[in-house]
C-alpha cells in the first residue's frame, strides 16, 4: 500500500508545486529586472538565490531531474553573485533571464503541457555552458598565498559560520561539521564568538548560539568547503570568502554578521585584523587616553594597523546598529522589519471560490425576496429580522468579493520585462513608471485585461515613442517615458497608459481612413471622431508592419476585449507631446449595488456609484428631440437629459410627472428621465446572452425579488449614446429591451 500512497501523494501535490514554482520563476524575473538598476544590492541577490534554491529543492522532491540539473547550474552562478565574487553585468542579466525562461519551459514540460524537443535541449545545453563559464571565470584566479614557507597549491579561505538556533534540534552537531572541514586542509586559527553565548540562566540548552570564524588553508574547491555545511545550509549563515578578499567583501561580511556591539570584536571576527593587532590598537588607545587624547578605536586601527577605512566604517555602522537594536529591542521587542513572507496566505482553488460567490448571489436574491414578503405582512418584528439578515448578507458579500481581489501590481510587473526587451529590440531607450500597483480588482478581470494591456503597451513602444534622434530633434529628452497607472474612481478601476511620444498624427489617421473607405474622402470629422477611427477594424498606420503590432488586428480587438469586460477605452492625444489611453473597468463582475427605476412597464437598474442625485416629481421638459434628448435646469446650470422612454421606444402610459436621475460618467454629468424611482437595490448581475451583446447602454441583467427582470445600465456607454450628435450613423444595432429576454 505504501508505495501507492506515495505516488498518489506526489501526483496530488504536483499541481501545488507547479503553481509555486511558477511564482518563484515570476519573482526571479522581477528581481532580475530590479537588479538591473541596483546590481550590487545584497538583499535582492540573496532573494534571487533563494528563489532558484527553492525551485531546485522542491523539484528534487518530485524527482524532476531535468529541472534539478538545470537549476543547479543557475543556483551555482547565483551563489557566486550573492557572495560578491561575480558582478552582475547587463550581459549576465540577459543570460539569467533566458535561463529563467528555460526553467519556465522545463516546468511546463513537467506539467505535461510541452514535450522536450531537440531544439530546446540544444538551447539548454548552450545555456549551461554559458552559466558555467560565467560562474567559473571570475572565481578561478588563485591569489598569491600569504604563507611563504610552503610551496603552496593551497588557497587561503576565510570561513564564517553562524549556526542557527535549531541546529541541535535538527540533529546536527557543529563539532563534527567543523572537524570535517578541518579535514579539508589546515585551520591555523579558529575563533568562537563567546559573548554570543547567553548566560546560564538565560540559556536554552537545546538552542544553538555558536558562531565561528576561521581561516582555512586548503586545496579544496569552494563547493567542497560549502558542501561540508550542506546539512545545516538552511539554518546556518555561511560565508566562504575567497583569498585576497576585497574590502567590499569584508564590508559585506560585517554587514551580514549577527549583532555584536564591540567594534574590535567585529573586525577580528571578520578576519580584517588579527587579535594581536586588535590588542595593539587597544593599547594604543589606552595610551592615548592617558595623555588625555580621546582617539576612536577605529581610527587607531586604521592608522596603526592599516585596516582599510571602508572596513572600519562598515564595522562602525554595524556597531551603531547593534547598539540601537539592543536598546530598541528592549523597548519594543522589535528589530528589523519582518520579511513579507510573514504574511499568512492560504491557497484556494479558484473554482471553489466562484462556487461560493454564486451561492452568495442566490442568497442575495432569496434575501431580497424574503424581505419583500416580510414587508407585505407588515409585521414589524419580521421586517426588522429580515433587515438584519440583509445587512449580514451584505457584509458577507463584501467580504467574499474581497477574496477575489488581487492587486494589479502583479500584472504591471510583468510589463517591466516586456518593455525592457521590446525597447531593446527597437533600439529605443524607455523608462517605465508603474503607479498604483496596489489598486485591487477582481481576479478574472485582471486575467482578461492583461492581453489588451500588453498590446497597448507594445503599441506605445512601437508607434508612440519616437527613436532617440527624433526626440532630441524635437527638444525632448532622449529617453522616452511610459507610465502605467491604476486607480479607483466611482466604483470603477481606471487604468492609464501614458507616453510622451509623438502623439496621434491626425492627418495620417484621416488619410488612412479615407484610403480604407472608413470615411468619405474629403470629409473631416471632428477630433474625437478621428481618434475613435483608430479602433475601427482593419485600421493601421504603420508604414512597415513590425513584428509586434501594425498588423491591423490590434485596436479593435483590444476594444472589444475591454468592452466584453463591461469596460470602456478612450484615447486622448496631443500631437508632438504624447498620448493617453484610459481604460475603465468595473471593479467586480458579480454583484452590484444598484438604483432601481421604472419606465413604463420595464424596470432598470443604475449602478449606485454612478448616481449623483435624484430629482423626484419633476415636470417633463418641453422640448425633446427625436432621440429623446433635451435639457433641464438644475441649480442654475444646464443639465443634458435623455428620456429612456424615447431612447428605447418603450411602451406603457406616460405619467404626467416623472423624475430625473442624475448620473456621472467620467467627467460628464447627464440626467435620465424616468417614470418611477424604486430605491436602492442590491442585485446579482447575470450576463446578457450573446444575442444581446450588441445592445448598447446595457451591461447586464438582474432578477428582482418578485421574479421580474431588470436590465442594468452601462452608464458610460449610455452617456456616449446620449451625447452623439443627431444624424451620426450608428455602427451598432439598437434593439429594444423587453422583459424576459435576459438569460
Amino acid at each position: 500500500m505504501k508505495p501507492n500512497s506515495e505516488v498518489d501523494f506526489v501526483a496530488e501535490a504536483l499541481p501545488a508545486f507547479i503553481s509555486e514554482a511558477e511564482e518563484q520563476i515570476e519573482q526571479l524575473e522581477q528581481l532580475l529586472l530590479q537588479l538591473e538598476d541596483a546590481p550590487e544590492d545584497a538583499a535582492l541577490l540573496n532573494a534571487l538565490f533563494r528563489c532558484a534554491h527553492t525551485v531546485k529543492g522542491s523539484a528534487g522532491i518530485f524527482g524532476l531531474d531535468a529541472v534539478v540539473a538545470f537549476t543547479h547550474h543557475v543556483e551555482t552562478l547565483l551563489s557566486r553573485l550573492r557572495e560578491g565574487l561575480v558582478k552582475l553585468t547587463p550581459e549576465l542579466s540577459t543570460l539569467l533571464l533566458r535561463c529563467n525562461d528555460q526553467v519556465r519551459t522545463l516546468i511546463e514540460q513537467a506539467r505535461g503541457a510541452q514535450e522536450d524537443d531537440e531544439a530546446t535541449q540544444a538551447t539548454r545545453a548552450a545555456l549551461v555552458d554559458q552559466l558555467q563559464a560565467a560562474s567559473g571565470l571570475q572565481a578561478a584566479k588563485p591569489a598569491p598565498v600569504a604563507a611563504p614557507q610552503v610551496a603552496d597549491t593551497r588557497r587561503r579561505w576565510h570561513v564564517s559560520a553562524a549556526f542557527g538556533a535549531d541546529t541541535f534540534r535538527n540533529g546536527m552537531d557543529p563539532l563534527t561539521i567543523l572537524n570535517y572541514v578541518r579535514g579539508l586542509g589546515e585551520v591555523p586559527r579558529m575563533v568562537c564568538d563567546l559573548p554570543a553565548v547567553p548566560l546560564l540562566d538565560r540559556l536554552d540548552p537545546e538552542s544553538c548560539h555558536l558562531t565561528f570564524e576561521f581561516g582555512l588553508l586548503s586545496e579544496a574547491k569552494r563547493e567542497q568547503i560549502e558542501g561540508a555545511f550542506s546539512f545545516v545550509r538552511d539554518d546556518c549563515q555561511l560565508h566562504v570568502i575567497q583569498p585576497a578578499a576585497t574590502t567590499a567583501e569584508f564590508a559585506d561580511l560585517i554587514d551580514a554578521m549577527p549583532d555584536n556591539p564591540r567594534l574590535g570584536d567585529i573586525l577580528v571576527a571578520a578576519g580584517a585584523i588579527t587579535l594581536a593587532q586588535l590588542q595593539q590598537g587597544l593599547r594604543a588607545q589606552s595610551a592615548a587616553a592617558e595623555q588625555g587624547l580621546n582617539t576612536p578605536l577605529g581610527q587607531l586601527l586604521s592608522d596603526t594597523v592599516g585596516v582599510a577605512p571602508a572596513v572600519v566604517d562598515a564595522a562602525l555602522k554595524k556597531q551603531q546598529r547593534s547598539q540601537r537594536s539592543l536598546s530598541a529591542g528592549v523597548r519594543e521587542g522589535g528589530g528589523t522589519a519582518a520579511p513579507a513572507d510573514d504574511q499568512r496566505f492560504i491557497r484556494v482553488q479558484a473554482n471553489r471560490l466562484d462556487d461560493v460567490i454564486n451561492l452568495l448571489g442566490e442568497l442575495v436574491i432569496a434575501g431580497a425576496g424574503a424581505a419583500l414578503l416580510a414587508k407585505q405582512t407588515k409585521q414589524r418584528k419580521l421586517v426588522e429580522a429580515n433587515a438584519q439578515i440583509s445587512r449580514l448578507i451584505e457584509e458577507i458579500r463584501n467580504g467574499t468579493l474581497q477574496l477575489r481581489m488581487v492587486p494589479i501590481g502583479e500584472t504591471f510587473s510583468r510589463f517591466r520585462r516586456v518593455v525592457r526587451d521590446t525597447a531593446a529590440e527597437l533600439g529605443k531607450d524607455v523608462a517605465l513608471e508603474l503607479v498604483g500597483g496596489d489598486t485591487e480588482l477582481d481576479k478574472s478581470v485582471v486575467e482578461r485585461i492583461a492581453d489588451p494591456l500588453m498590446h497597448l503597451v507594445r503599441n506605445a513602444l512601437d508607434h508612440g515613442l519616437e527613436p532617440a534622434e527624433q526626440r532630441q530633434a524635437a527638444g525632448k529628452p532622449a529617453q522616452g517615458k511610459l507610465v502605467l497607472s491604476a486607480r479607483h474612481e466611482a466604483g470603477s478601476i481606471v487604468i492609464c497608459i501614458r507616453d510622451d511620444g509623438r502623439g496621434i498624427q491626425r492627418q495620417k489617421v484621416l488619410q488612412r481612413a479615407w484610403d480604407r473607405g472608413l470615411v468619405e474622402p474629403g470629409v473631416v470629422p471632428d477630433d474625437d471622431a478621428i481618434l475613435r477611427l483608430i479602433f475601427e477594424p482593419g485600421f493601421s498606420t504603420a508604414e512597415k508592419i513590425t513584428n509586434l503590432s501594425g498588423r491591423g488586428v490590434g485596436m479593435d480587438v483590444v476594444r472589444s476585449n475591454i468592452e466584453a469586460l463591461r469596460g470602456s477605452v478612450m484615447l486622448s492625444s496631443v500631437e508632438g507631446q504624447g498620448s493617453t489611453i484610459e481604460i475603465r473597468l468595473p471593479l467586480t463582475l458579480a454583484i452590484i449595488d444598484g438604483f432601481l427605476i421604472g419606465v413604463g412597464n420595464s424596470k432598470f437598474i443604475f449602478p449606485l456609484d454612478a448616481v449623483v442625485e435624484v430629482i423626484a416629481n419633476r415636470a417633463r421638459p418641453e422640448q425633446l428631440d427625436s432621440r429623446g434628448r433635451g435639457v433641464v435646469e438644475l441649480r442654475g446650470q444646464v443639465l443634458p437629459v435623455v428620456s429612456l422612454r424615447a431612447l428605447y421606444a418603450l411602451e406603457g402610459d406616460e405619467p404626467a410627472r416623472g423624475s430625473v436621475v442624475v448620473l456621472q460618467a467620467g467627467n460628464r454629468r447627464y440626467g435620465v428621465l424616468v417614470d418611477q424611482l424604486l430605491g436602492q437595490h442590491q442585485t446579482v448581475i447575470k450576463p446578457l446572452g450573446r444575442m444581446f451583446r450588441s445592445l448598447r447602454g446595457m451591461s447586464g441583467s438582474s432578477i428582482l425579488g418578485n421574479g421580474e427582470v431588470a436590465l442594468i445600465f452601462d452608464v458610460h456607454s449610455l452617456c456616449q449614446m446620449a451625447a452623439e450628435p443627431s444624424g451620426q450613423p450608428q455602427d451598432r444595432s439598437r434593439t429594444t429591451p423587453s422583459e424576459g429576454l435576459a438569460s
Partner: protein
Amino acid sequence: MSEHAPATLKLPQELTIYAVGELHPQWLAWLAEASTQGREEAEVDARAVDQVDAAGLQMLVSLQRSLADRGLRLRLQEPSEPLRQGCRALGLCEWLAAGMADATPTEEAAA
C-alpha cells in the same frame, strides 16, 4: 561564611545534547551556591568527560561566562582528553587554557 571550599562541580561522562536538558537546572543550582560563597574561584572537575559535542561545550562556555559575570573565575581541573579535543575542534583552546591557568587570564577571548 563557611570555611570549607565550595562544592566542586563534577562534569558528567556525557556532556552532549542528550544530557544538557538535565544538567541545566543542576548547574544553575550550583552556580547560585557558588556565588554566595564569597570566593574568587569556582572549581569544576573535568576528569570524567568522555563524550563531548557542541551543545555540551556551549553550556560549559555559558557557565564560565555566568561565573565571570558574578566575579568568579572558572577553574577546570584535569580536563580529559575528549574535552580537550572538543575544545580544539571548536576553537576554544585559548578559552580552555584560560580556565586552567593559575594566573589571571587575559580574557581576550571574552573581552
